[in-house]
């Protein structure tokens, strides 16, 4: 008997091991994915919170990449949006001048994409160019028809106009309803006023009188509104007035502009060229 107990004592661990192992194996053998899933679900009740915490940490670590992806996506969408906006703007601009018919003046429109006021030589950049029918020497007017400047350079898709607020800008202007004219220029001081200089002393300008372009300008049609007389001053020799003219166009709030081309001018020029050609051929 004592021997039996000693034997059992010596092997009971092995027996226990075998029993446990058999139990585990049989449980494993009888398990299905369903059992495992149920087991996992049960254990997740306990460790799910910790899992969630670690998932949160990992998500936090990947935030940078996620952000980058999002930013890329945003950039892509912004680009598409910009394309749509551009198309919409072009459509709107074209609709202004549609069905106007033929006239001496050809109109087109553009959006001001660049505009300076704080320099002595201020220029406007417009979003239309040669491809849209914009040419050099076209007049640039504000939407209400007030004088803004004229186009000095064109590329295929953009053009640059000299603003009236440019000390190189010159044109001729006159007091409305009178024959007296002078030259319009900017003295580079106040972006709201220009100077009508060399106005005859007989003109007697009164504050509030309209100033318009004279007809013989190279760039502008006649009677384009420039502004209103603000103050007038006789010069030292008392032969001419220097008039300060408040601009009609609000240069700082310029968004869309009208471009005007004089068809006749092109025709005249073409004519001159053809005469030259004719002369040339006669010489030969």
């Amino acid at each position, binding site marked *: 008997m004592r021997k039996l107990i000693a034997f059992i004592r010596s092997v009971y661990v092995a027996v226990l091991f075998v029993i446990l192992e058999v139990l*585990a*194996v049989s449980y*494993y053998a009888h398990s299905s994915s369903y059992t495992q899933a149920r*087991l996992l*679900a049960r*254990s997740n009740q306990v460790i799910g919170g910790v899992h969630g915490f*670690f998932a949160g940490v990992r998500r936090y670590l990947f935030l940078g990449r996620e952000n980058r992806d999002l930013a890329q996506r945003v950039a892509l969408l912004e680009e598409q949006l910009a394309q749509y906006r551009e198309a919409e703007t072009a459509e709107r601009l074209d609709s202004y001048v549609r069905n106007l018919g033929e006239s001496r003046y050809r109109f087109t429109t553009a959006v001001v994409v660049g505009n300076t006021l704080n320099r002595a030589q201020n220029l406007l950049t417009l979003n239309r160019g040669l491809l849209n029918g914009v040419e050099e020497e076209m007049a640039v007017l504000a939407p209400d028809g007030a004088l803004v400047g004229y186009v000095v350079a064109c590329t295929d898709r953009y053009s640059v106009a000299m603003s009236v607020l440019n000390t190189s800008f010159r044109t001729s202007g006159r007091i409305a309803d009178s024959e007296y004219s002078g030259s319009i220029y900017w003295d580079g001081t106040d972006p709201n006023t220009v100077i009508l200089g060399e106005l005859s002393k007989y003109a007697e300008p009164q504050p509030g009188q309209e100033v318009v372009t004279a007809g013989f300008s190279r760039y502008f049609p006649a009677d384009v509104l420039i502004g209103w007389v603000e103050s007038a001053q006789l010069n030292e020799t008392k032969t001419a007035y220097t008039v300060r003219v408040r601009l009609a166009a609000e240069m700082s709030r310029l968004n869309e502009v009208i471009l005007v081309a004089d068809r006749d001018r092109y025709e005249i020029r073409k004519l001159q060229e053809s005469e030259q050609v004719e002369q040339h051929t006669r010489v030969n």
Partner: protein
Amino acid sequence: MPRIFPYLGLFVSAVLLQIFLFDNLSISVYLNPLVYIVFIAMIPLDARPVTLLGAGLLLGVTMDFAMGAAGINTIATLPIAFFRTYLAGMACGRENVREGGIPSPERLGHRKFVEYLLLLTILHHTVFFLLEALSWGHIFHTVLRIAVSTVVSTAFIWIIARIFTAKLPGRI
């Protein structure tokens, strides 16, 4: 039962490390380190066989529960708990085992300590991965998984064991 708290801490940290770190290392199908058996490896050499077996059962069941594996961890952990005494004897000699104490490089020697860990890990991983595959069809694949995972597991177990033994007072 002295030193219950260090072992409780080791058990908890081994299980947590396995669940939340190593089970999430989806680097390769061949790399599936099972480091939780460091708990079995660190039990004092003179522990009673039934204690060892109980520890193995507890660890296996806990891991099965946590990983949602129906028994596979228990099946793999029980043999290393049961055979640990023989494996330790194989690796470092019966005198060392009889002397008792916590297995550590200082006590067993660096080389023998690694051998001891390696033997335990090989046994555990072989049972585990064979059972997981349950087929001889992809035996090469399975052997490769066992080999790669064993090497990596042993390395991590060694690190954890170093930390554990370093924390304990020198008298043990």
